[in-house]
């Protein structure tokens, strides 16, 4: 061990030290900046960025190191062996290349991070000690193994930190100058710490004059020149990077604005912070009118706003889709599909929403028309089926009736005649009886056919039936612009019944109500109520139609009685039978100022089928 007193006492010029730290920070900043560019670029451009970035960053680190060495003053003149200096520069560039390569990969697992930082740390340490080896002075350099190890470990540690920071900051969407400056400062200080530990590891023992071949002394001017050159290189790198970034941003914006789609981004709560040109052009909104919640207020159809729903969707943080009408600049609304995906940070918090808005109006309209067509078809099919059934019934019943009438007529003719014998009337009268029986058998067979599906009785919640029917008829309500009010008493007793049959009754009553209400001027209004009554529940359907003429009130439940031009007069009659078979009662409670139909259902299972 060489005693400290034997070594040459070195001293630091602290202003130079400070300058070296500044260079370290600037180099770090450039490194972070370049990592982002390298990440954003692809293929050859990426290689170019990686190479140039490595050179700029290498020069920066090297300059810092060199500056740090120059800040160290020894009482003997120091010269530098320039080929070794160049070698140290090369090592710095290589180490930077490794760093940029690792930090710009799309994924960085711990092994990669560690390997990268060891390579990078070794590179920096190598550069440092090669640089020190370039010193030519009247002293031999001795190293303290402990501090050397320490400095190498520090280099590796610093490299790891640097890599992690660069990796984290490379996404340019998270780019912010203060954050990056902070990270660059930390990195710069770390680089400096490593450097000065390395410097401290060396002690200089006076010795014979060195071999000064290829050695140069660095005059103060050269000293500054190194610094200035390094800063210029770094500045050039950062400037190029920022110009490139701006260009690629412009390109991206051009793409986003000309894309045949409406593109936007929103903050985590759903307030917009970017709307592309197409969105603004469609809605005719200025940037100010659309941003924040303006897009909702100014473009979304009032009926589709349901802010709570939107907020819930945004709060849930899951990709979602919503259909809504957006107002075009000319005031017409069109249906759109909004699709949103969240971007998250490491903790899984949503930091931004990105989304598109696609015009689905034509599709939606086609769907509506198709649904309408299907409904019409179903209605026609029902009518045709009814017609078929009626004709089958007519045929089956008319045959025996024909025989009965004909035989009856024969008997009458006989009786009218001058002479007749009772015996010749026996056969036709027997046939009349037989055919009468046969006709009634046909009727009961048809009844049996219709009742084939024996009514199912389940304990059901009438409110649920009402809700289901409202869903089934939603289209009808919308099409007829019905203002619908539903007042359901909660916790009604359950009633035994056939859900399908009861739905049928409700659909009948509501469809009648829609038809009646739509026949008058003004908004058709329908009120559906459920309530508890003495022995069960009651349901009311009230419309805003013209009501029912007093003369007709007593006939409306009769089969085949109808007031509609195309009605067949079975709806209310069938409904009446259904409610009757449930042990309840269907009645017309009020016929003036809109009809009010009501049916009751007993809760005690009094229903008979």
């Amino acid at each position, binding site marked *: 061990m060489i005693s400290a007193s034997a070594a040459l006492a070195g001293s630091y010029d602290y202003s130079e030290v400070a300058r070296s730290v500044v260079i370290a920070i600037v180099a770090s900043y450039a490194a972070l900046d370049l990592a982002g560019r390298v990440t954003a670029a692809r293929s050859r451009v990426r290689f170019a960025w990686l190479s140039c970035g490595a050179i700029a960053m290498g020069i920066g680190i090297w300059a810092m190191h060199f500056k740090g060495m120059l800040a160290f003053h020894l009482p003997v003149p120091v010269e530098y062996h320039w080929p070794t200096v160049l070698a140290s520069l090369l090592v710095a560039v290589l180490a930077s290349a490794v760093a940029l390569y690792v930090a710009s990969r799309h994924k960085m697992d711990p092994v990669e991070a560690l390997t990268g930082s060891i390579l990078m740390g070794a590179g920096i340490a190598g550069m440092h000690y090669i640089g020190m080896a370039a010193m030519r002075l009247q002293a031999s350099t001795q190293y303290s193994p402990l501090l050397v190890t320490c400095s190498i470990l520090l280099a590796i540690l610093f490299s790891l930190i640097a890599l992690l920071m660069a990796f984290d900051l490379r996404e340019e969407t998270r780019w912010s100058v203060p954050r990056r400056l902070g990270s660059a400062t930390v990195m710069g200080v770390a680089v400096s710490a490593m450097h000065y530990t390395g410097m401290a590891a060396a002690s200089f023992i006076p010795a014979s004059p060195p071999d000064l071949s290829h050695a140069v002394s660095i005059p103060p001017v050269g000293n500054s020149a190194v610094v200035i050159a390094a800063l210029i290189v770094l500045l050039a790198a950062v400037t190029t990077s920022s110009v490139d970034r701006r260009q690629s941003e412009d390109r991206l914006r051009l793409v986003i604005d000309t894309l045949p789609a409406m593109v936007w981004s929103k903050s985590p709560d759903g307030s917009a912070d970017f709307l592309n040109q197409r969105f603004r052009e469609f809605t005719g909104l200025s940037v100010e009118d659309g941003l924040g919640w303006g897009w909702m207020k100014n473009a979304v159809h009032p009926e589709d706003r349901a802010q709570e729903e939107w907020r819930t969707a945004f709060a849930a943080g899951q990709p979602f889709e919503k259909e809504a009408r957006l107002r075009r600049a000319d005031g017409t609304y069109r249906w759109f599909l909004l699709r949103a995906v969240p971007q998250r940070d490491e903790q899984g918090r949503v930091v931004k929403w990105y989304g598109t808005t696609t015009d689905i109006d034509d599709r939606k309209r086609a769907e509506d028309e198709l649904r309408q067509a299907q409904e019409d078809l179903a209605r026609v099919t029902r009518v045709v089926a009814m017609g078929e059934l009626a*004709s089958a019934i*007519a*045929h089956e019943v*008319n*045959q*025996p*009736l*024909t*025989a*009965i*009438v*004909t*035989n009856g*007529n*024969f008997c009458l*003719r*006989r009786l009218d005649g001058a002479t007749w014998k009772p015996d010749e009337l026996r*056969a*036709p009268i027997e*046939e009349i009886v*037989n*055919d009468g029986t*046969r006709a009634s058998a046909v009727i009961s067979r048809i009844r049996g056919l219709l009742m084939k599906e024996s009514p199912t009785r389940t304990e059901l919640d009438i409110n649920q039936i009402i809700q289901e029917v409202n869903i089934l008829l939603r289209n009808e309500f919308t099409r007829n612009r019905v203002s619908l009010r539903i007042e359901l008493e909660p916790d009604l007793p359950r009633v035994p019944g056939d859900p399908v049959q009861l739905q049928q009754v409700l659909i009948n009553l509501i469809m009648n109500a829609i038809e009646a209400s739509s026949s008058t001027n003004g908004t058709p209004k329908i009120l559906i109520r459920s309530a508890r009554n003495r022995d069960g529940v009651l349901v009311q359907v009230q419309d805003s139609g013209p009501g029912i003429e007093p003369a007709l009130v007593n006939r409306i439940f009769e089969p085949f009685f109808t007031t509609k031009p195309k009605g067949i007069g079975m709806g209310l009659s069938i409904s009446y039978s259904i409610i009757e078979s449930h042990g309840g009662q269907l009645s017309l409670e009020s016929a003036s100022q809109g009809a009010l139909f009501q049916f009751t259902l007993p809760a005690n299972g009094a229903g008979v089928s």
Partner: protein
Amino acid sequence: MSEPESIVFVVDDDPSVRSAIKRLIGSMGLQVELFGSAQEFLASKLPNLPSCLVLDIRLPGISGLNLQRQLAHANIQIPIIFITAHGDITMTVRAMKAGAVEFLTKPFRDQDLLDAIQHALERDRNRRQQEAELAVLRDRFDSLSPREREVVALVVSGMLNKQIAAQIGAAENTVKVHRSRAMEKMNATSLADLIKMILRLQVPPIEPVN
């Protein structure tokens, strides 16, 4: 049993209806024959008598309307009265256009059916009588010699004996002989009578040559 004067055919797949109709029509003293399907009817031998067909539209196998068409194709000119338990306007129009006498909806008034049957039989009787007369005329015409037919045709076309003689290259007296013999054979009492007969027979006229 004596030879019936006329006969009514009934095609209906319902035995009760068939039996009741038979009883009703029978009470009017008409002969009735029953069939359960169109095929049965087509398979039977039709007597040469004034007759009509009471036909149900809905039948198993060949439908009533279809049978009407088949009969028309086979040139069987029997008057048809349709009866149906579920007639609609299209069906009625089709049946009537194809020559049906009546279209009755079950259950029908007995008098309507009987009236229709009387009407149909009357129509058939007339047709048969005319056909018989025509057959006689045709026999008479067939008995004419070729020369006599030629002379008759020219007479009917309005030529004088002299002109006919010139056209066929015979003496006027010869033409007169042919003419009077033809009148005799045709049993025609006057020229007008002869012309009427030839028109009914639809003999193609011979154009005079000038």
